[in-house]
């Protein structure tokens, strides 16, 4: 039905935004820094060498041609070299990004389950003690950044209580599974190395929870307040008036409209985790991309920075698309165009 058309439309806009982003990145990475040739060569390089270099890099061509050449390189996975790792940026991305994506996926799972449970529980017990307890958690969660939780958890549950490993992604001595997908967890499962998988998850748990808390707190509050708002709607009174049971009203007719704002924010929170993961990865020495990117930024490693911005952009575009699709699924008014 109209769902396909709707997704198509969203997809189109996602691509347009990414195109816009790529223009920005090109400008940012190629134009602002000045003449790339001068940065490459020494001061006493003969003119004809410079001219040859300029031609071979197509820097003598018009800007829009340069842009398309650059874009083609990006699509071919050529993102240039990193001055920090002295490797191709693509290699760095392939090494570090999967770790971060795994961490974010794990954190997102905590966030989705946690925010829904807490939000619905609070919204179903407005002004009772359950609600107050959850509100206190929410205030703390919203007002303290993720990396502080990371430090607190590390000190408490790793150092002091010893329930979790302090740093890293795998205990040394655990062999990495043969690389198939590049995702450690998945590769371990594919290779049947369940102990490795468990060890990996064990390492990821504290950073994932720390990363998930601020968003969980915020989304839980939104779901709670959504439930309060919708509870006052006439259609809820009427459903009650027609003798529908409390359970049906709460989990069907009340819940669905209540979660819409929460779902939108949940998506944003998950997309923003890539940024928030920077410091959490530092604390836990998680071998992830965020930590790597911070390092690049501190060293003005332009190519890596460009790659980072691009990855964050793509991540936002994908999550936006997913969120829009989910919201359109929940709310038919959006699917059928224009809310009344």
């Amino acid at each position, binding site marked *: 039905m109209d769902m396909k058309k709707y997704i198509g439309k969203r997809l189109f806009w996602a691509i347009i935004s990414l195109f816009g982003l790529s223009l920005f990145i090109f400008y940012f990475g190629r134009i602002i820094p000045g003449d790339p040739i001068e940065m490459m060569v020494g001061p006493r390089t003969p003119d004809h060498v410079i001219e040859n270099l300029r031609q071979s890099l197509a820097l003598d061509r018009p800007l829009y041609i340069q842009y398309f050449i650059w874009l083609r390189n990006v699509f071919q996975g050529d993102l240039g070299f990193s001055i920090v790792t002295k490797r191709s940026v693509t290699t760095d991305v392939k090494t570090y990004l999967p770790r971060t994506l795994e961490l974010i996926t794990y954190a997102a799972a905590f966030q989705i389950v946690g925010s829904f449970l807490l939000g619905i529980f609070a919204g179903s017990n407005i002004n009772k003690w359950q609600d107050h307890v959850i509100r206190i958690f929410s205030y703390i969660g919203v007002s303290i950044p993720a990396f502080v939780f990371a430090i607190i958890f590390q000190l408490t549950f790793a150092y002091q209580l010893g329930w979790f490993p302090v740093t890293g992604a795998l205990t040394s001595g655990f062999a990495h599974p043969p690389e198939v997908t590049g995702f450690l967890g998945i590769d371990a499962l594919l290779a049947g190395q369940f102990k490795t998988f468990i060890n990996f998850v064990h390492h990821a748990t504290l950073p994932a929870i720390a990363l998930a808390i601020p968003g969980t707190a915020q989304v839980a509050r939104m779901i709670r307040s959504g439930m309060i708002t919708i509870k006052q709607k006439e259609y809820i009174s009427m*459903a009650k008036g*027609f003798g529908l049971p409390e359970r049906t009203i709460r989990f069907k007719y009340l819940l669905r409209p209540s979660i819409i704002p929460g779902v939108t924010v949940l998506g944003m929170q998950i997309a923003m985790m890539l940024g928030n993961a920077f410091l959490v990865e530092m604390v836990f020495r998680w071998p992830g991309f965020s930590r790597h990117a911070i390092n690049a930024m501190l060293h003005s490693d332009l190519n890596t920075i460009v790659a980072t911005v691009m990855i964050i952009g793509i991540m936002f575009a994908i999550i936006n698309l997913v969120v829009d699709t989910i919201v359109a699924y929940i709310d038919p008014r959006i699917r059928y165009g224009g809310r009344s």
Partner: protein
Amino acid sequence: MAEGLLEIKDLDVGYKTYRGVTSVLYNLNLKVNRNETIGVIGESGCGKTTTMKTINQILPDNAVIKSGEVNFKGKDILNMTEKELVKLRRRNVSMIPQDPTASLNPLFKVKTQMKDVLKYSRQNSEDLDFKEETIKLFNSVALSDPERVYDSYPFQLSGGMRQRVCIAMSLAAPKDLLIADEPTTNLDVTIQDQVLRLIGEILEEMNFSAILVSQALGLVKKFVDKIYVVYGGTVIEIADTEKIFENPIHPYTKGLIESTPKLTGGGFSSGIAGQTPDYIDPPSGCRFHPRCPHHSEDCKTEKPKMREFEKNHYVACWRQ
């Protein structure tokens, strides 16, 4: 003495607001006999919906029932357990809402909402063909193209269609009392008449006891046996329908009869100077006195009692 189905006695209801608790309904008394249809008439904001929602206990969370009784078949609804209330809503009392657009859930198809209403208000609904029953109901409320309506979301329907869907829901199972709370106020003028006629037919056919709520006396006079005029949360005049038109006693009732409904469909202007009372700090004595052209000192100090003016005609006014 006719047999009472519903009897509201000295009902006081208010709302918690940021300014304090209001006093909306104030000593409200009302009675519906079996097979009787009454009209409840009053300006916007006089507490009609509040009264109706007290009957099946679907008031908003901030409502406070301070005192009174709502006896239904001799049992006080205000003392019922949640379980008894659910049963009351399923078996005894139905309500047609004031605003059909706000009363249907925008995220669920009509068929889903209809199905749940049927499932829980019909007895032995396990072996019910919900679609068949729904279409039957839609036909009985003269919904054109019932198959399409069945498979639509509420926002894909016109206001009149939505109200017919709501009426169909309220007819899903046989009940003792049908409450129609200004069923046409939020509809286009052209549709108002059709929907009102439909409700009239239903009342005639089904032998319901019914309460028809309206802001305009003229609108309901064809359908009701008796009229209750409400002002500021209390009943100020009760009479058989013809009598109220022949011989209105209360100045407020007179004002209502003299004024005419606005044709713009935007409700009704009473033609009586002034506004409905502020329910945080309502006027002392007779709540109508600040607007009453004839008020005396008595009116300011004490609430007038309901007195029999003539047979089947009661009025609460110091001048009588």
